[in-house]
């Protein structure tokens, strides 16, 4: 099939950026979306033009490196799927595809489709951990964890930190990301001692990183390639409230 791509090109953070149109010819249905871009890029390189910069690594949907907005949707049209796992059998000959970077104040564009997401790391550094000095741990079976709790913590821990939730949110809020990490750790008995401090510190850092506020749109959940539930935002709010009350008391 032949496709027309409209790709956001931006040489540097200061460049204004613009859409540039490319023809993607002889695209095969079995290609992944990124393989389709690889072929376009190799063609550009052959002609001595600079290829489209996009971030990607594992191409298995787990590292969270890739991310672009495809026809207005972060990671494209497939549910629970990162853009590296999107395959071209989704498209038909003659389709137009618009490709843009994540757009959020918390994620400045570095080049083309590549954005700076180090803000998410700083949120984790503020409290997204359990302090357990190497070698100090008791036997792993010393504290039983009900299966349901472990499973729910695992649901939250599945977050890959790609930032699609931020890109999808009309407020560019990082609440789904932050709540997933808070929930993962706060739901486990090992995470209890630091529970209150964790939620406060992480929320404060999130606010310091230019992310917007959550107004319960739920676009984040729809865009999330790992199906992280907005229920975790409710859990964050509950933990935050009780921590804030506890702190003021």
């Amino acid at each position, binding site marked *: 099939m032949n496709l027309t791509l409209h790709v956001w090109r931006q040489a540097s953070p200061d460049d204004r950026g613009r859409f540039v149109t490319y023809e993607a010819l002889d695209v095969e249905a079995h290609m*992944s979306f990124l*393989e389709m871009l690889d072929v376009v890029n190799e063609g550009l390189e052959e002609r001595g033009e600079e290829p489209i910069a996009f971030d990607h690594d594992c191409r298995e949907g787990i590292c969270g490196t890739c991310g672009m907005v495809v026809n207005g949707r972060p990671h494209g049209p497939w549910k629970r799927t990162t853009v590296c796992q999107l395959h071209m059998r989704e498209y038909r000959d003659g389709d137009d595809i618009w490709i843009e970077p994540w757009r959020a104040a918390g994620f400045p564009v570095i080049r083309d489709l590549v954005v700076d997401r180090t803000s998410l790391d700083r949120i984790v550094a503020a409290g997204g951990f359990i302090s357990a000095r190497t070698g100090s741990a008791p036997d792993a079976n010393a504290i039983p964890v009900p299966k349901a709790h472990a499973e729910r913590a695992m649901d939250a821990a599945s977050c890959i930190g790609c930032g699609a939730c931020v890109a999808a949110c009309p407020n560019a809020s990082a609440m789904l990301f932050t709540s997933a990490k808070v929930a993962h750790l706060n739901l486990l008995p090992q995470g209890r001692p630091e529970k209150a401090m964790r939620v406060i510190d992480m929320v404060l850092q999130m606010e310091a990183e230019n992310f917007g506020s959550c107004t319960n749109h739920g676009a984040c959940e729809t865009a999330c390639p790992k199906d992280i539930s907005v229920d975790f935002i409710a859990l964050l709010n509950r933990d935050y409230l009780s921590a804030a009350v506890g702190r003021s008391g």
Partner: protein
Amino acid sequence: MKLDSRIPSGPIAQKWDQHKFEMKLVNPANKRKHHVIVVGSGLAGASAAATLAELGYAVTCFTYHDSPRRAHSIAAQGGINAAKNYQGDGDSIYRLFYDTVKGGDFRSREANVYRLAQLSVNIIDQAVAQGVPFAREYGGMLANRSFGGAQVSRTFYARGQTGQQLLLGAYQALMKQVGSGAVRLRPMKEMHDLILVDGHARGIVTRDLISGEIESWTADAVVLGTGGYSNVFYLSTNAMKCNVTAAWRAHKRGAGFANPCFTQIHPTCIPVSGEYQSKLTLMSESLRNDGRIWVPRNAGDGRAPNEISAADRDYYLERMYPSFGNLVPRDLASRRAKDMCDDGYGVGSSGRGVYLDFADAIERLGEEAIRERYGNLFEMYERITGENPYGQPMRIYPAPHYTMGGLWVDYNLMSTIPGLHVIGEANFSDHGANRLGASALMQGLADGYFILPYTIGDYIARHAGDPIAPDHPDVAGTVEGVKSRTARLLAMDGNRTVESVHRELGRLMWDNCGMARTATGLRTALERIPTLREEFWEDAKVVGGGGTLNQVLERAARVADFLELGELMCRDALAREESCGGHFREEHQTPEGEAKRNDDGFSHASVWGYTGEDSAPVEHREPLEFEYVTPSQRSYK
């Protein structure tokens, strides 16, 4: 090159404890004055950086990713082994040790493997304390599953995302130290060279992937946790950015490279679908617990799998290896799949595939149970192939996955360059000629949490010298070298894309140094690779400049090193006149087609020393001694 393995004396079970006692310590108050550079933020690098910082050292951690959490450890699916014996099925430290030495086809160091088995239990404790949400039973205790090459259930797992969860544990521990200022994190910086001062590793040179700036960093010691080199094959299960550059640069500075030809071909990957293929996707080995592997009994049987009756199917692993069945080690499972396809029994449009069938398991356990165990893997398979594995068997084929070879290290994980320590997949490690499933996570974390942070103290206590000035001639000279090499890459303006050279190298390596190797094939590759390397430097092109994010330049620098490494791999494979584990020389096999070792001639690690651009590398040997596990023909029948 002197190879002193520094294996402690005494009974194997006491070597590590005794060694810890004998190591010199660094005064706690002095640790903050000692600076350690950690390159890489995967399981090994992140756990080492976090632990070193907890101990009080000043640590700088480098990664070429935007975030440490992206490191490729994240993609490990199946699990992590530990000799906890929570299942009460007869497991023990000694059994894990024994299985690993045997699984590695008697080409690893006994003392290291024993220590690994000992530490496996501590890793699980540590991970649980950090909040790693391992699978649990209804009573709240940890669950286990079995994995290839073992007959006990010792594998801990977090759905099909065990690597992700363990890496997040290590990453969170690292970010806590970053938050407190104990670790300086330097993302988007790729190591391009090692700085040696008076023969000791004292720093690195990096290129900033965003600004293009080439910078030097100095320290008291350097740790590489930079992963494996399967991307030399172009198509592999590795992430796109995985590369050998850091390790190769260290090799060219004097670090011995051990057993480069020991590569692992993983049996359960999704087959190649076309020329545009950019990488191969692994389906966790854990699938072999419930999936049955088969091919049609009649070559060229073109019927859909569900139309082929049981009588017309050949469950060849169960037939050939009745006691291990579908759970034979990876090297055997891969080789048998290749044999079946070579003989014309392969399935799928390319004929390079075998079936992995869950129909029996679904009938026995119900679709829900299978969904709970492997749901995410099944979804991934369907997304990539468009086929539903609940209704029809998966098609799988082997793919390059893990590299057992790597920089040679002694018992302290120090390379042949004093001060340069190498951990995780980047070292030649504990897996011998074949790694058992669920052992990579174990080794990366054992090295990072429990071994390196202590052994490096011994080096620092003995050797830490004066700080190195940034204008020291050895620093400035190394920076200049990287600058001129980068300029040379940027000046390349030929007709071939970097990608096309890499693809050609990959095909050459896969055909001649892949699952089966012959002297003739290896000689062919050894003739072609130097020419290809010349073509790369003369006829490839790098578009774009050096002062911004330039992904073509990044790839070119990595491919240039793969073009040198590939040659060394073939040379090593040619020199090793035996078959062992993942290294299968067709000339050396038993009448049944199994790997035939030559213990008299090759019970050693081959350690290659770099001698210059225009001269051949020199092979050194570390003899391997087996005091506890007697080498025997591996049998999984």
